[in-house]
């Protein structure tokens, strides 16, 4: 009897384990099924390269959203990377213990704050600030505000993984460098960071993946206009003040009332996002595994 129960349990547990594959399969199947209509009727080319998204008039180009996602992620990396890598080096090599006790929990807390709260803070504090920048049509909502918010959101991710990578560098390298008469900083720059390079790159890539997938905070501060971001006036820098829409925002904002081909196009947006993130995450994982060998 006990043996019977034992076997039975094994099969049940096996099914649980297969549950993960089952769910992935379901997600892929459903998303694909719903999006097929869009790919067939609109065509991959028009969908991906078309800049006009006006469902009411039958235009379903998501290029503007792709550019929006890419630009806001780029902005987040530009703003956040120096802080993240600097912070990682600080925590791993420079910080006295008491400072570590402050910064680490701070990062943990930053990581735990819900994205809507970041979005709210962005709306209430950052957007009015950005609106101060003198440029016509500057509403405060746009790439700059969104990049700032996103930078803070991906900071903990990048800092943590980069710090681990730096700590993983064997002590002998550091000792060898110091014994040759190099300063601590020279050791960090010439030996430790190069040795931790693939781990740091993996951290950045994972941050990119996280940024691409962010939805709610983006909807709240980026403006959601379906335009390809452009400078507001002659000054090319004002492109950061342009409103935009991300792939994630496109999905969240329109899915509830979209029907038919429109709905299918939203799912197609989801497929594009899914593929993008899988590529990003896989390359990060490959890099990290390469380092371990």
């Amino acid at each position: 009897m006990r043996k019977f129960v034992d076997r039975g349990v094994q099969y049940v547990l096996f099914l649980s384990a297969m549950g993960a594959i089952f769910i992935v399969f379901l997600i892929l199947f459903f998303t694909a099924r719903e999006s097929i209509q869009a790919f067939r009727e609109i065509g991959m080319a028009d969908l991906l390269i078309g800049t006009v998204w006006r469902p009411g008039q039958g235009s379903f180009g998501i290029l503007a959203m792709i550019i929006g996602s890419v630009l806001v992620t780029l902005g987040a990396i530009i703003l956040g990377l120096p802080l993240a890598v600097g912070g990682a080096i600080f925590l791993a090599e420079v910080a006295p213990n008491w400072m570590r006790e402050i910064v680490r929990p701070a990062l943990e807390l930053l990581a735990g704050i819900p994205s809507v709260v970041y979005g709210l803070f962005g709306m209430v504090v950052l957007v009015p600030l950005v609106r101060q920048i003198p440029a016509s049509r500057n509403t405060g909502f746009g790439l700059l505000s969104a990049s700032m918010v996103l930078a803070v959101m991906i900071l903990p991710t990048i800092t943590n993984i980069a710090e681990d990578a730096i700590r993983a560098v064997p002590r002998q390298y550091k000792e060898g460098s110091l014994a040759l008469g190099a300063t601590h900083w020279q050791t960090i720059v010439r030996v430790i960071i190069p040795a931790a390079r693939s781990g740091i790159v993996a951290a950045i890539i994972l941050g990119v993946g996280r940024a691409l997938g962010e939805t709610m905070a983006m909807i709240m501060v980026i403006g959601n206009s379906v335009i390809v971001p452009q400078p507001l006036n002659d000054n090319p820098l004002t492109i950061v003040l342009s409103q935009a829409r991300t792939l994630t925002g496109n999905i969240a904002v329109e899915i509830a009332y979209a029907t038919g081909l429109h709905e299918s196009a939203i799912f197609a947006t989801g497929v594009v996002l899914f593929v993008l993130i899988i590529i990003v995450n896989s390359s990060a994982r490959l890099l990290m595994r390469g380092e371990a060998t």
Partner: protein
Amino acid sequence: MAREASIRQIGVRLSGGAQKSNIAQRHVIQQLAFALMWLAAILTVVVLLLVVGYVLVEGARVVDWEFLATPPRGGLSAEGGISTTLVTTVYLVLLTAAIAAPLGIGAAIYLVEYAGEGQGTSGLTAFLVSVARFGVELLAGVPSIIFGLFGYALFVVTLNALTGGFSLLSASLAGACLVLPVIIRASEEALRAVPRAYREGSLALGATKWQTIWQVVLPAAAPGIITGIVLSVGRIVSETAVFFVTLGGSHHAPQSIKQGGRTMALHVYYLAMDTRAFEKAMGTGAILIVTIVMINLAINLISRRLTAGLKGR
């Protein structure tokens, strides 16, 4: 000074004294670089204080007992509190955990105890298991809006009759998919950490594999597994995108699992975007932050108990 003299004494014999030392320059560069590192760290802490501080301070103005106990008036009105959202959040957490925990823990048990190292599975089973592992990794990287989209397509639309469309049930099912990888990973780790000796001791006494797992391994791995569940609770509380498209936006508390509602996180969104009631949004946000902090503290406490237990108290 004495120090300069010492270095010069030694340096004189070196390479005909021609090599001028760049040591001062290097020290200056180091000081500068370290100052920048300090700046980065301080800036990080400042940003945290800014965001959290602002929300807590602004939110505290609005939060009082009435705020917590009255339901929101709904529509575009900013009146009322957040009582129904609190209730909805709790329901959602319980339902999602009830779905995801058994599935996730079960999967982890299989992966570690039946298909782990030294179990000798082969052929089709082994292949399926490696696909399953890959599947978990994949799931962990999927952004939450995709889960929302999928949840919408499957649970809200296709299975409308069963789930009631936008409802607690749809949202929990979608949310369960989201947190499944978290629970599986934490449980796997916890199970792997249980010393082999425990299992071998039990089996040597004539217990079956399942009896061993149920009575010896699981209790030992409990803190780690619980950590995983609490982590996913935190996830559910702060997640918005998934539930945005599966829960509907009703400001009423759901009377059954086939009804919809809004969580606190969703309420923040609606207050900010639709109603423009920023003070109340801050208040709700403040409650959210406090909740998350308490959940994090709980996790830390459990982890500490965990490491104490492994080291033999």
